[in-house]
């Protein structure tokens, strides 16, 4: 008990005495961990959205309306529907009329008047929305119906999703790489600060060594000093992410109703992903910085 109170007390003294460096350490840890947390949350968000969307993925078979090919006749449309419903690859078929497509478009882009102004009811084609028994079998559907009379084009939403995933992957990796670089900078700063703290108290550590304190007893206050600063930085990063991301998602939810955003509790769950790297990084940097310096 007495040991720990000594070690904690010494660490606190070191942090106070070296306030400007402590602030620099905390801020650099905050920056790097905010990026790391953002990268992790983006991944969780994308995973959550992907899971949600995978179940809803459809193939859209757009029907000719006379703009690029002769308009589909009623009998062609009925034949296509019958054929689709009989196809074992097809799970469900819905018909979306031009009016329904326009209404859906208006709902989806309710906050984007520029889009709405430029799109008229006649612009959007009618389509069959086809749900596949196996979402991977898109190619089979495409070759089967591409040349059918009255079919303008076939679009797989999964391809759109794949593009989105690739895009979010780039953002995620960029954030991750910048986070890693910022972590290295933070680690160097932690190491320097801890070394300075140890140097400032070299009289004390010299006495400790000569009266027979163990290496770890001499080192631990300085290591703990780095770790405490790191944890504080992680806590600030966590608070920023929880408030910032939650606020952003709450706002986005209004316009992007089809996206299942992470809940506040899920966002708060990122804490261990910040705390563990913070402790590992600062403890590692401190131990390396003191290597040989405080050997008894």
């Amino acid at each position, binding site marked *: 008990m*007495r*040991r720990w109170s*000594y070690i904690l007390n010494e660490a606190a003294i070191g942090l106070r005495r070296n306030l400007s460096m402590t602030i620099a350490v905390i801020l650099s840890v905050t920056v790097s961990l905010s990026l790391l947390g953002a990268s992790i949350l983006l991944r969780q968000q994308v995973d959550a959205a992907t899971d949600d969307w995978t179940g809803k993925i459809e193939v859209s078979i757009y029907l000719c309306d006379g703009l690029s090919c002769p308009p589909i006749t009623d009998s062609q449309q009925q034949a296509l529907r019958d054929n689709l419903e009989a196809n074992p690859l097809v799970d469900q078929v819905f018909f979306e009329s031009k009016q329904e497509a326009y209404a859906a478009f208006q709902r989806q882009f309710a906050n984007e008047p520029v889009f709405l102004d430029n799109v008229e009811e006649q612009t959007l084609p009618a389509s069959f929305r086809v749900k596949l028994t196996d979402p991977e079998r898109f190619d089979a559907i495409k070759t089967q119906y591409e040349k059918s009379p009255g079919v303008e084009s076939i679009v797989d939403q999964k391809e759109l999703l794949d593009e989105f995933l690739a895009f979010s992957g780039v953002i995620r990796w960029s954030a991750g790489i910048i986070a890693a670089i910022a972590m290295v900078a933070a680690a160097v700063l932690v190491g320097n600060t801890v070394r300075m703290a140890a140097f400032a108290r070299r*009289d*004390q550590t*010299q*006495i*400790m*060594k*000569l*009266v*027979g*304190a*163990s*290496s770890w*007893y*001499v080192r631990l206050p300085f290591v703990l000093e780095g770790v405490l600063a790191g944890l504080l930085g992680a806590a600030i990063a966590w608070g920023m992410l929880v408030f910032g991301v939650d606020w952003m998602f709450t706002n986005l939810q209004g316009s992007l109703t089809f996206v299942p955003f992470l809940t506040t509790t899920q966002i708060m769950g990122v804490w261990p992903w910040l705390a563990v790297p913070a402790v590992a990084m600062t403890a590692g940097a401190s131990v390396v910085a003191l290597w040989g310096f405080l*050997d*008894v």
Partner: protein
Amino acid sequence: MISFDGVTKTYKAGSNDQVVALRDVTVQIDRGEFVFVVGPSGSGKSTFMKLLTREVRPDAGTIHVAGKNLGELRRWKLPALRRDIGYVFQDFKLLPNKTVSENIAFALEVIGMPGGVIAKRVPEVLDLVALSDKADAMPHELSGGQQQRVSVARAFVNQPPILLADEPTGNLDPQTSIGIMKLLDRINRTNTTVVMATHDQHIVDSMRKRVVELSEGQLVRDQARGVYGYAS
């Protein structure tokens, strides 16, 4: 208690030069002895002391301290060695932000001594160095002699079998030095081995203890009940 057997220590000075601090020194110190290590600055006294605590390691020869062969001692066992040795510095090295009793208690706290033992030993050792009334004073409120007595108290509070003192009177006036010497003599009579490096002729002459003289790293005299200046 302490033995040097053919100990040589050289330091690097620049890229090519080497300075010989100790050359083939062999000496034996028994339990309860009081030994002066004398010689001018640069004669190897400090190296001699630092070898005893294994702050530095010899290039050749073997050193035994308190039954331990320092050459074979694993690093994690160094704290155990140093708990057998009290160390008094020329410049006292008291921690300025701690009171007298906190400075002494510090030496016990950092080796994990229980609070009850600390509460008992600190007043005892303060009584020994006659500073009971200064227990709560800060170091800067004390005279040099008083500070050195605190330093001796800190070195002795763990009752080590060996007490090393490196020029303990170097920063003190002659009158005050006598007080410190009386204190070290008293500690020596508790069967504690005392090794004191000094170049204070008056003190060595007046104490008439064993004198080990170093000159340019070599042991040039080892005399029981010796004086400073006269090589036999």
